[in-house]
């Protein structure tokens, strides 16, 4: 019996701890105090639930227990720091009011937490770390491991961010309608960074870190559920459509497989269907932006039964629109690669050479490998070799480096 209650507590922790934390931060006005209160509330649950039974509404019970534990903590500390006594009395004065932990206010608290963790007044690194820690509940060590940095570095980043929230008084709020576009962009950027780090780790031996991508997709789902804005849907769609190719992206021996050569029967159909439906919804809103457009491009790829059947004309058209909303050299490069597929390698090469001639992307390995690939297809072996070598000098990921080395080797064999 006691064992099954313990399992219940564990299950409640998994499903409710982030919600309870989000509400406690609002009630207590402090991240650290709320985390301690959350911890104490679960300790109380482990002690009391086997004896008294599992409460009817565990979430409300935990919020309420956490709040009283926080008042106790502040009272104890008030013996050393008188100012905390005032805070304890203030929280206590509001503590008689029933805990509003109904679904709607709890969902609002979750949004408050997301927007506060992704506040643009915090550094991008801190936004990512804080979101993974507070919203996703990842341990500091896990975050450090995922981003290949030391746990003390990540811990310090989180501590500093919490201090800034407290000292500069970053409010625990859902942004107003006026602020929403800018603030939502910041949130989406954090989710995208997390996904990208999981999908294509910026360095290291392993190409992907599945856990981070899964966290990002979970965050994306939460956002769409709480705030169904077109770009939130677009981002979730883009993540799902890219994730759907994960199994096909690497061969059995860990080598990189390009989109055109992937075994499409390995693509995850469920993720593709969900992603494509989200793209439709986002496009239908007519308020879509870069994430939706990138998702739409991924959806066109996903729809093609084989690489040869890809509708490149539509992809080039989508890139044209994307380039208007996001005029960056990277988008231009991707468009050039699509043009090469639609109109032939010579047309694509002209565009890539124009980008490189401007000096943009000169140190971006994918620009050189794309150029090398087009030269190779045009039979310009010497140019291809030179560009592959340049790409190899810039690439940091082991599977990508091996891929480039293989291509160089193949050039050597054919010439």
């Amino acid at each position, binding site marked *: 019996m006691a064992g099954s209650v313990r399992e219940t507590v564990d299950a409640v922790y998994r499903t409710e701890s982030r919600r309870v934390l989000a509400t406690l931060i609002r009630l207590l006005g402090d991240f650290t105090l709320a985390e301690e209160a959350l911890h104490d509330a679960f300790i109380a649950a482990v002690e009391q639930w086997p004896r008294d039974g599992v409460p009817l509404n565990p979430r409300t019970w935990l919020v309420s227990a956490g709040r009283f534990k926080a008042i106790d903590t502040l009272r104890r500390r008030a013996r050393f720091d008188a*100012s905390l006594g005032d805070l304890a009395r203030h929280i206590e004065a509001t503590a008689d009011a029933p805990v509003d932990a109904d679904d709607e206010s709890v969902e609002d608290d979750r949004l408050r937490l997301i927007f506060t963790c992704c*506040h643009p*007044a915090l550094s991008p690194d801190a936004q990512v770390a804080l979101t993974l820690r507070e919203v996703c509940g990842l341990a500091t060590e896990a975050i450090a491991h995922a981003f290949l940095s030391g746990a003390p570095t990540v811990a310090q980043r989180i501590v500093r961010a919490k201090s800034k929230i407290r*000292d*500069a*008084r*970053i*409010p625990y*709020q859902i*942004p107003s309608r006026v*602020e929403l576009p800018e603030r939502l962009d910041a949130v989406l950027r954090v989710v995208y960074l997390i996904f990208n780090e999981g999908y294509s780790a910026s360095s290291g031996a392993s190409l992907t870190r599945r856990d981070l991508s899964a966290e990002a997709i979970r965050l994306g789902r939460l956002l769409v559920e709480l705030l169904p804005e077109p770009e939130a849907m677009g981002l979730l769609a883009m993540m799902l459509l890219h994730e759907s190719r994960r199994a096909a992206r690497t061969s059995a021996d860990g080598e990189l497989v390009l989109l055109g050569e992937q075994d499409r029967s390995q693509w995850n159909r469920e993720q593709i269907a969900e992603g494509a439906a989200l793209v439709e919804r986002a496009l239908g809103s007519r308020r879509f932006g870069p994430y939706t457009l990138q998702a739409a491009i991924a959806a066109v790829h996903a729809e093609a039964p084989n690489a040869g059947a890809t509708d490149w004309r539509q992809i080039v058209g989508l890139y044209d629109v994307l380039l208007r909303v996001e005029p960056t050299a990277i988008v231009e490069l991707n468009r050039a690669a699509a043009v090469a597929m639609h109109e032939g390698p010579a047309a694509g090469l002209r565009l890539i050479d124009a980008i490189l001639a401007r000096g943009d992307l000169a140190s971006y390995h994918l620009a050189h490998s794309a150029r090398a690939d087009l030269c190779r297809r045009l039979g310009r072996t010497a140019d291809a070799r030179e560009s592959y070598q340049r790409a190899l000098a810039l690439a940091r990921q082991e599977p990508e480096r091996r891929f480039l080395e293989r291509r160089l080797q193949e050039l050597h064999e054919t010439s």
Partner: protein
Amino acid sequence: MKYLCLIYDNESTWADMPHEQAEAMMGEYFAFTESIRQSGQYIAGEALQPVQTATSVRVRNGKLSTTDGPFAETKEQLGGFYMIEAKDLNDAIQVASRIPSARVGTVEVRPVQVFEQPT
């Protein structure tokens, strides 16, 4: 809560500005100051003379040293400030974003440290 808004911009932008444009900018400053007086958020605010009037003062081992110029040579110079009252950082950011120089330079927003008064 009090926030200090430090206004940094390139002094040459002001110096090179046509007379009418500078007048218009000054007008915007007067209107902005008036609006935060009305809303009760204004505590203090001043414009500073150009950076070549700056003097840096240090005392080391009891010895005074005075040097010409600002503490740090930067592309954008501290040109003025507002001390404002705002309910939180978002509120302060909203006020700071309406300072005319925010469109050409940078406004640094810093919360004021409050020390416990010994009783």
